[in-house]
């Protein structure tokens, strides 16, 4: 079940984090308040890098679910389409998540792909 407000989540389709201008910390998923600075914090949208490394992962029902560490230290739980190991470099990709029903809304969002296999695909 996906809540209706899902479509209202501005950055479901892109990796946009929050950045606190007061302390310089990045947060993903986005936050409305900086847990370090609280009222003094100044939360802004921040585009974060498209590449990261696999910190750890599991294989669940044939799918690779990984915790990816992005360059600024932000961690992101995501599906990786392809074979990876701890430390593998990955980049973000726009992928299908699923659909509400056969004729229903299709959900899209960000997944990651291994950078190596990406090169092979292009070749």
């Amino acid at each position, binding site marked *: 079940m*996906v*809540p209706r407000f*899902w479509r209202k*989540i501005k950055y479901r389709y892109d990796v946009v984090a929050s950045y606190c201008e007061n302390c310089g910390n990045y*947060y*993903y*998923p986005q936050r409305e308040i900086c847990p370090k600075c609280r009222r003094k914090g100044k939360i802004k949208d921040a585009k974060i890098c498209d590449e990261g490394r696999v*910190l*750890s*992962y*599991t*294989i*669940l029902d044939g*799918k690779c*679910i*990984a*915790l990816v560490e992005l360059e600024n230290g*932000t*961690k*992101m*739980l*995501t*599906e990786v389409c392809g074979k990876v190991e*701890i430390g593998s470099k990955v980049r973000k990709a726009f992928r299908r*998540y699923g659909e509400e029903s056969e004729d229903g809304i299709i959900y899209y*969002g960000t*997944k990651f792909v291994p950078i190596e296999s990406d090169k092979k695909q292009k070749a």
Partner: protein
Amino acid sequence: MRKVAIVGVGSTEFGELWDKSFRSIFLSAGLSALEDVGIGGKEIEAIYVGNMSGGKFIDQEHIAALIADHSGLAEFGIPAVRVENADASGGSAFRQAYMAVASGIHDIVIAAGIEKVTDANDPMEVLSTAIDQEWERFIGADLPAIYAIIARLHMHRFGTKEEDMAMVAVKNHRNAVHNPRAQFRKEISVEDVMGSPYVAEPLKVLDCAPLSDGASAVILASEEVAKKLCDDPVYIDACTQASDYFSIQNRRDILTFDAVVRASRKAYKIAGIEPKDVDVAEIHDSFTITEILAYEDLGFAKKGEGANLIREGETEIGGKIPVNTSGGLKACGHAVGATGIRQIVDLVLQLRCEAGKRQVNAEKALALNIGGSGATAVVTILSR
């Protein structure tokens, strides 16, 4: 703050209780706790009940008033409240009951936990509502997946082996053999665990606690009342709770449960003891890796060295710090919201020397109840 004691304990068998209803499971645990202390029930001033998801498991909310009624306590109109903190619901309910007596508001209360999971189509799906639906569940992770990600990094960074995790399950099954209320009263081998299919790599079926039906109840009283009621009250030296960032993606280090570190350090301080003073512990082994992480976060081992305790038999009955003499969640069963109370019941039996063949020599006992992937931790220290 007053000193608080546990004067009575009771628990149902954990397992697949197909032939019993939610309310009757609760009643049987509650009645055995009352019987244990030898009171009728009229004396009880409040009920605190841990339950994760009556709504999703059996389509029933408002369960505290329901079970108060079925227990015959609606007659007295005492307050009843349900506490929800995923699988730390029981521990959290216990802490609310403890605070109610310690503060002087009530003299004698019941803290219970109950879950009926086998009527649900997919109990693990319900348990996975303990993780972030928007940012973890949505991308396809479930609770075992989160622990699997933690387990793989623990293996990579510290050299923990799948066999080490398997040994946790083997130990807990061995302990359960002599526990009359345990779901799986049979031994398993490391080979059995290693040969069981993957649930979420590297975690296998036999690394995971089952989801069970069951209820447990304990009766708490002020020291003054406790001394009148029984000869062998077990005292609550500390009962602390802490929270952490909800999702592993926001944690400082996914291999440390800061909630466990914080709650346990505070509990040790209040109780005036150190980790080495703990004689017996019931630890939330929802997955085998959870028990290994807990050894480290509770201070029984240094970070990264948790597997050494299981390799060297230190947490076996007869070891330096026996852990999960009940069989733990893995083999005694995990009746989600009841687990935190069930841990207290088993520790009270140990401290009263009523644990039968599982008996260890203990003065100080510790319980750790964890919610979901570690965002909630409740630590209780008991002494006789």
